[in-house]
């Protein structure tokens, strides 16, 4: 694509000179990424992948380097704790690790829950950290690779089953000026291990910040990972996330991403099949309103035979919000007996909302069963009428149906308190939007 910097260096290029200096263990990683960053241009809308998403809000913000993590009252932090994870929690504020609030080592032998800086010499970290990232000419991952302060490290030894879900809590505080956070995660589940991870991003006020979480996941033979990702950034935040997971033989990786916050979010989940007989899920729920722009570009990369994969991406758009979805399903040559299904359902509630979707199948093997379906529309008038005939007001009927529409996506979230929390979020969204909805 010849994406070398011809243009002006972007704000990210400029900020990259402020890389953390107190972590010699990462100097190689930072150096490599800085080199790459300096020869890569900031993307623009003429590039197909960015066709519908304007990054000017990022380019035009005067971000400043943040020297301190920021101090928060304990209650502000603790209210986001999920009770199931009292023995297994990692807390980060603006990308910096908070040992005081974290709970490590509580899951016993075989399960490592910690921060990357402290585990830099861990064999697994040296084998995988920053090596699983695979985004083409992507300034965001490179920038993260230069700037990350610390990160979450989760490792399960062979056969280890985490008895409790692990919460990775990312909080973003109010700072006087817009700042950039670069959270990082590395999850390696060795053979036959099993873990559930709740990754949460929460903005504590309405300020502008840019967060670029990069997450690397390795699911080894027979391992199972459930990965719930909740994005509740501030209403003025910018969020660009890069979660990538590799799945080995007989392994399962199931991910559920719930997008609620941020002014502009760009989420690029990827799953790469590394051997036969795998099973993966890449579900998403997007609830947006106002001026929000939520963009999901996903990749499900089938490289070997015998995979079952599933993606349900549901979107509700209200106000002047704009949703973008591009779901790529690749089936490489010789990857036979693939059963892959993608479904993208968009509910467009308002006259000013906009939905762009591009489901994309790229198939190079003949013995596969791949399909996708995409719909954009409003609530089914028949269903609204049915509920009205049972005595509900039109407004109430629409609220109920929107709620039901959104709920399907979170049914697979098995951690009780998180499930409850998500139901509340869905409820809050549908409730808050129930008045405007009548416009259609």
């Amino acid at each position: 694509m010849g994406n070398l910097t011809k243009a002006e260096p972007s704000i990210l290029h400029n900020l990259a000179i402020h890389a953390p200096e107190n972590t010699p263990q990462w100097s190689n990683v930072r150096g490599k990424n800085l080199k790459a960053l300096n020869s890569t241009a900031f993307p623009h809308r003429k590039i197909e992948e960015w066709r519908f998403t304007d990054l000017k809000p990022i380019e035009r913000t005067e971000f400043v380097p943040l020297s301190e993590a920021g101090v928060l009252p304990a209650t502000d932090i603790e209210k986001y704790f999920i009770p199931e994870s009292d023995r297994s929690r990692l807390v980060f504020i603006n990308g910096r690790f908070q040992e005081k609030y974290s709970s490590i080592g509580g899951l016993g032998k075989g399960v490592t829950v910690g921060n990357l800086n402290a585990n830099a010499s861990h064999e697994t970290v040296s084998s995988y950290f920053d090596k699983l990232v695979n985004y083409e000419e992507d300034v965001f991952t490179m920038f993260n690779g230069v700037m990350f302060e610390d990160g979450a490290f989760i490792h399960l030894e062979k056969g280890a089953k985490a008895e409790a879900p692990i919460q990775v809590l990312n909080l973003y505080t109010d700072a006087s000026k817009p700042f950039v956070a670069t959270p990082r995660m590395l999850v390696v589940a060795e053979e036959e291990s099993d873990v559930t991870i709740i990754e949460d991003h929460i903005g504590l006020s309405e300020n502008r910040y840019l967060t670029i979480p990069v997450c690397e996941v390795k699911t080894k033979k027979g391992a199972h990972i459930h990965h719930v990702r909740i994005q509740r950034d501030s209403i003025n935040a910018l969020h660009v996330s890069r979660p990538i997971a590799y799945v080995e033989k007989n392994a399962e990786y199931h991910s559920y991403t719930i997008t609620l916050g941020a002014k502009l979010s760009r989420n690029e989940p990827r799953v790469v099949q590394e051997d036969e007989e795998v099973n993966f899920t890449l579900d998403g729920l997007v609830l947006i309103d106002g001026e929000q722009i939520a963009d999901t570009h996903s990749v499900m990369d089938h490289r070997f035979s015998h995979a079952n994969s599933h993606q349900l991406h549901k979107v509700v758009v209200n106000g002047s919000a704009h949703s973008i979805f591009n779901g790529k399903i690749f089936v490489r040559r010789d990857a036979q007996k693939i059963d892959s299904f993608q479904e993208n359902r968009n509910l467009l509630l308002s006259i000013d909302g906009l939905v762009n979707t591009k489901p994309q199948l790229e198939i190079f093997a003949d013995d596969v069963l791949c399909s996708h379906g995409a719909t954009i529309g409003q609530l089914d008038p028949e269903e609204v009428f049915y509920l009205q005939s049972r005595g509900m007001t039109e407004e109430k009927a629409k609220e109920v149906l929107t709620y039901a529409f959104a709920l399907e996506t979170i049914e697979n979230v098995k951690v009780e308190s998180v499930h409850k929390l998500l139901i509340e979020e869905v409820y809050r969204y549908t409730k808050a939007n129930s008045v405007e909805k009548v416009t259609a």
Partner: protein
Amino acid sequence: MSETKALETMIGEEYKYGFTTDVEYEDFPKGINEDVVRLISEKKDEPEWMTEFRLKAYRAWTEMEEPTWFNATYEKPKFDTLQYYSAPKNKPKLNSLDEVDPNIRETYEKLGIPLEEQKMLSGVAVDAVFDSVSIFTTFKEKLAEAGVIFCSISEAVKDHPELVKKYMGSVVPVRDNFYAALNSAVFSDGSFCYVPKDTICPMELSTYFRINNMNSGQFERTLIIAEENSHVSYLEGCTAPMYDEHQLHAAVVELIALDNAEIKYSTIQNWYSGDEEGRGGIYNFVTKRGACRGKNSKISWTQLETGSAVTLKYPSVILQGDNSVGEFFSVAVTNKRQQADTGTKMIHIGKNTKSTIISKGISAGRSDNSYRGQVKISKKADNARNYSQCDSMLIGQTCGAHTFPYIESANPTGKIEHEATTSRVGEDQIFYLQQRGISEDDAISLIVNGFCKEVLKELPMEFAVEANKLLGIKLEGSVG
């Protein structure tokens, strides 16, 4: 796998139309510049406004870049060495069939398109385009009785300048895209059709395109206008000889349907597709677009794409009139090294507009077959509806099938449904049919035919036979 082989032989059958016709050509310089554009205009004895149109397009083209966004790789055409105009020496415009070069007449006979009216399928009028010029148009008088104008675009420029001026470039502006701009600058000939108000065109209209000259590109231009309450069905067929060099075909087709008018446009595209190694074959870079300008108007595209080395083609409908309808039915078969990136655009602007897309892609050999489509519901298109179904079938393991649908809605009362599947010819299906006495080849034919059925049934009867031959498929229910 034996089924693969059988299907490959079926759809990869020797190209039957690859012969060349020995014709003496007028001299014409190679390459392109303003003088060449003027020369084309001069050769065609065009009025000043037409020359200006061409020059404007040419200037626009020189500022444009060749597109690269599609899913195909090929050696770019050499615009400097291409010949932009190619006319057999034995012309002038013919009024009697006797004056047509006997070699050319024979060519059309061989292609199964006899130019004698009595030999033709009754009910089909043909405009025969050979390289850059329209050779002969049949049934002109009969159509004139009904008020329908059907002639070459060159004649239309002279005889109906007000219509051409008004509509040419109104659906596909000269700056629309790289190849449309090039076409607008150098288009040589093509068909023109005007159906007046309250008229149902009494017969099927058809153009048969033939590229014969090895070094020439073909840039034809088609313009069809259906006035209020009129109806026309138009068919288009294409073949070319086998050469080792690639040939460029960059046509522009514009359709305009006014209130309550209906245009049905069908194509069987069987340009030479190149050999096993990808040598030769046509680059088919065509801009086809229809505008449903009037209320309740309807434009329907049906295409059976089997030829060409590289196809980039997206017959589209702009649904401006309220309650207008756009349809796209497509079967695209690729084999050997063919690359097809084809689909449609349905742009909903008017209220209560409806569109349907049915696309069937079959890939075999080492080919790549892509569906690329856009469905857009604009802010004001209340109650717009789209349904799309894009199915792919892969045969063998060295080909690819791709689906790139772009879907956009800015209106909450609009509704878009898109489905896509990928499958293959199942071994169990073949065995089942074989057990019923049907040979393996025929079994595959039947299955492929079944796969394409929703599209094939949209082809006019006159084309169904050719479609049948092309796919090597015994068409079902050919009687009744």
